[in-house]
């Protein structure tokens, strides 16, 4: 069977730095992969490479057996950096509709079928009221749900979700994970779901892709979230603490995921 995403000794270079260096792994179709790792480990870079926005500087990267190409309609994508124009008063349904065949020339159109698909998906992510509301009046979390619904519409084969949980409260984080998991189980969509926190995804993900130090480890939680594997990826001594069904990744007595999360909020976006 052809892998959904396969890297063979692939290096991804940003500027003069190899963010990933000669990495090899294969993601099977229909898998729900949690993509984790410290800031700057290459989560966003990997997703951009899968989208065809960045070619490997060495080795090969294949998506469903083919070299990725920009504009692949079978990939649903939720970018990490999301430009927010503060004063756009367009309503949610028109916002999402703008992404339908948005790369084609000509006038925009919104058919009845499109509108129903949008409304149905907004309802699934618990955001049906956003269809009629102007963007300028939505909170960060509401915009986030709008984008998640958008990424899920149109039956993608592969979903690349870059930090989709940031800005969502606990209840909507659960809804978001649930909706993505449903798409994965019911429609066989392959999911790469990047996040800062492992615990929210533990019950849902099939395997973890942990990036760090130019390297990558793909495997089940028990295979990857271990002191030796993570110590190599972080380049420092890591302890893994299991407590009441939760897993904490600690370095010198501190929770590294928690620290990373605070760091993200303090310093904006990292690639």
């Amino acid at each position, binding site marked *: 069977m052809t892998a959904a995403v396969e890297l063979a000794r692939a290096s991804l270079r940003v500027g003069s730095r190899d963010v990933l260096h000669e990495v090899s792994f294969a993601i099977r179709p229909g898998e729900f992969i949690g993509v984790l790792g410290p800031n700057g480990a290459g989560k966003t870079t990997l997703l*951009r490479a899968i*989208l065809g*926005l960045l070619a490997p500087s060495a080795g090969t990267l294949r998506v469903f057996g083919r070299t990725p190409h*920009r*504009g692949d*309609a079978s990939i649903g*994508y939720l*970018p990490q*950096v*999301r*430009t927010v*124009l*503060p*004063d*756009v*008063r*367009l*309503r949610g349904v*028109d*916002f999402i*509709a*703008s*992404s339908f*065949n*948005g*790369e*084609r*020339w*000509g*006038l*925009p159109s*919104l058919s009845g079928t499109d509108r129903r698909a949008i409304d149905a998906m907004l309802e699934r992510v618990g955001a049906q009221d956003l269809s*009629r*509301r*102007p*963007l300028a009046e939505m909170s960060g979390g509401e915009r986030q749900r709008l984008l998640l619904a958008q990424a899920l519409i149109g039956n993608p084969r592969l979903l690349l979700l870059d930090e989709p949980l940031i800005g969502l409260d606990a209840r909507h984080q659960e809804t978001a994970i649930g909706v993505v998991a449903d798409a994965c189980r019911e429609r066989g969509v392959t999911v790469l779901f990047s996040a800062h926190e492992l615990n929210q995804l533990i019950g849902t993900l099939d395997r973890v892709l942990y990036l760090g130090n130019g390297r990558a480890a793909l495997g089940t939680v028990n295979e990857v979230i271990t002191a030796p594997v993570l110590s190599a990826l972080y380049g420092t001594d890591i302890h893994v603490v299991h407590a009441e069904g939760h897993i904490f990744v600690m370095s010198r007595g501190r929770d590294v995921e928690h620290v990373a999360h605070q760091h993200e909020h303090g310093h904006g976006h990292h690639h």
Partner: protein
Amino acid sequence: MAIITDMFRYEFMINAFAAAGIAAVVSGVVGYFLVMRAQTFAGHALSHIGFAGATGAGLVGLAPIWGMTGFTLAAAVVMGLLSERISNRDVAIGVVLALALGFGLLFLHYHTAFATQATSLLFGNVLAVDRGMIATLAVLAVVTLAALAAIMRPLIFASLQPELAEAKGVSLRFVSTAFLAVVALAVAQCVQIVGVLLMFTLMVGPPATAQRLTTGLWSGLALAAAIAVGEAWLGLTLAFYTDWPVSFCIALLSGVGYFVAVTVPTLRTGRAVLEHAHD
């Protein structure tokens, strides 16, 4: 009724209504995207660059509108190609804008006969529009709207979600350059009515008002064009009966329209909140 028909006994009023109508539709529709993309300042800069173009054209014996169209188009393409560095940087635009006005002044200095037209350029002179200008405006309007229609879908996508649009294969640079070229054409038309300094009255006021009143895409575009035409024509009427400058009247209506659109819904929500508190 007589009050309306009175105006149309004068050919210059009929011409003014026609020219203002054409330019207002273009300004409202193009301005809708200018407001959506938060690029109004770039639009303003283009109009100032157009001023230099118009005075420069006078120097070499061309009609001002062609100097203006040529200069704004060229500047739009340069700004678009440098987009990462310039088009959204207020400081860079401010410098270009000041430089353009400076050149405008220099051209005026060497072409003193043209100086009387400077006021018309800066503040508009729609009452002096002739049939030839109306035909020119009509052709420019068709070209502008056709170009906008051709790029509208990727333009909206790239404006609202540039990261995703790029991932889906939209060239952000091409779209933004093409859009600035469309803005340049629209500015050249708009300036014929309300002048370089008051182009915001048709290109920003009406679309911003429309976006306050409706959140739909097509309803917003239609309303922006309708408000622009309404304000331009009402402004002409007001000017005819008060003898105030036309551009002032349009500016007044544009400003009042926007402030009413901003405050009225807020008052309504405020009242709803109060009523809710009493429940």
